[in-house]
């Protein structure tokens, strides 16, 4: 604090008004104010300013048309986020197609007989069943053409899963095939989760 023989500096005065000075410093300022008309005037000016600030309204009416702009901004944001989710669905389907193509080249033979369960299946069966139930129940809520897009994507992924499972029957120790099957199951889970999210918007 600076309180020279003449006047209190503005910073000290500001701190005094806020009650931020220690008791000794505050007492010094008090004593000075009792003797100095100039500083009393300054103090009064600052208190008047702060009193006026305290009377400022906490709320200021925004421009009349702003609600329309807000509504438009929200609508735009909602549409943009839905488009982003749809592209993610398409991306998942594209990844499944690539995997399907790789599996076509990797399989050692085809069979139309039912494929026995693999160890990988059990990791995903319950989750896929639950999500499928949810999506089917909410299917009518899916926006636009999302349901058909989802069906096509699921068909691609299911084909890739089936191919991987058949390949594993012929080569059960092939860890690459295990990885491919797991990846496609995961894509299916993610696709169904996205569809569930979309249908709950």
């Amino acid at each position, binding site marked *: 604090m600076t309180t020279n023989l003449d006047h209190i500096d*503005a910073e000290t005065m500001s701190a005094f008004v806020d009650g931020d000075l220690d008791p000794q410093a505050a007492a010094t300022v008090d004593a000075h104010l009792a003797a100095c008309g100039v500083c009393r*005037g300054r103090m009064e000016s600052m208190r008047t300013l*702060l009193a006026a600030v305290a009377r400022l309204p906490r709320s200021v*009416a925004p421009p009349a048309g702003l*609600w329309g*702009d807000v509504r438009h901004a929200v609508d735009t944001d909602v549409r943009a986020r839905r488009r982003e989710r749809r592209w993610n669905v398409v991306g998942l389907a594209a990844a499944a197609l690539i995997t399907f193509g790789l599996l076509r080249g990797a399989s050692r033979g085809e069979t139309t007989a039912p494929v026995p369960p693999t160890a990988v299946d059990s990791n995903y069966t319950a989750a896929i069943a639950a999500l499928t139930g949810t999506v089917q129940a909410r299917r009518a809520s899916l926006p636009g053409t999302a349901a058909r897009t989802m069906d096509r994507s699921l068909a691609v992924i299911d084909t890739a899963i089936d191919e991987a499972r058949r390949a594993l029957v012929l080569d059960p120790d092939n860890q690459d095939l295990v990885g491919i099957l797991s990846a496609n199951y995961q894509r299916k889970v993610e696709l169904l989760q996205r569809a569930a999210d979309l249908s709950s918007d």
Partner: protein
Amino acid sequence: MTARPELVQNDGEGEQARARLAAAGDADAFARLYREHAGRVYALCLRMTGSPGRSTELVQDVFVRVWRRLSSWRADAALSTWIHRITLNLVISNARDEQRRRTREVSMNDTSPDTGAASGESGDTALSVAPPTVEDSIDLERAIAQLPAGARTVFVLHDIEGYSHEEIARLTGTVAGTCRAQLHRARRLLMENLTR
């Protein structure tokens, strides 16, 4: 955070119900939420930026975020407090972006000395005259808008919104001592401006 009085009536359960409706996509509920809170949001944006144009953009950004995150509001704080915090974060982020763009703006670390204060001469001469008439809040709002950005931020947050220096320092990424210096500067500049 330092307690400050709620300035928007909080009817507790009614507010929660309306917020749930709005979060579920009820447009009317969201419109009502906007009507209840837009004034406070706009006031904070306007005083922190000093720009009506930038403020309307920020209000839109605030309510888009409110829309996105409303389902995460847990009612452990009043909805007005939650929206206020979203507004504050956006405004401060905007201020930092503005600071980076306008390099000639006074930085938050600018603690220009209060020259002449001790002697009562020069810049503090205005303080020695009769108290200014500040009954016209429009003049005061205008004067606040003309403050340098760093001083305005601290002044609005401390003297209008009621935050402590420590809270302001955390919000703005500076230190309490700098905030105090900026506040004193703001008050001095306002006094000078209003007595011209």
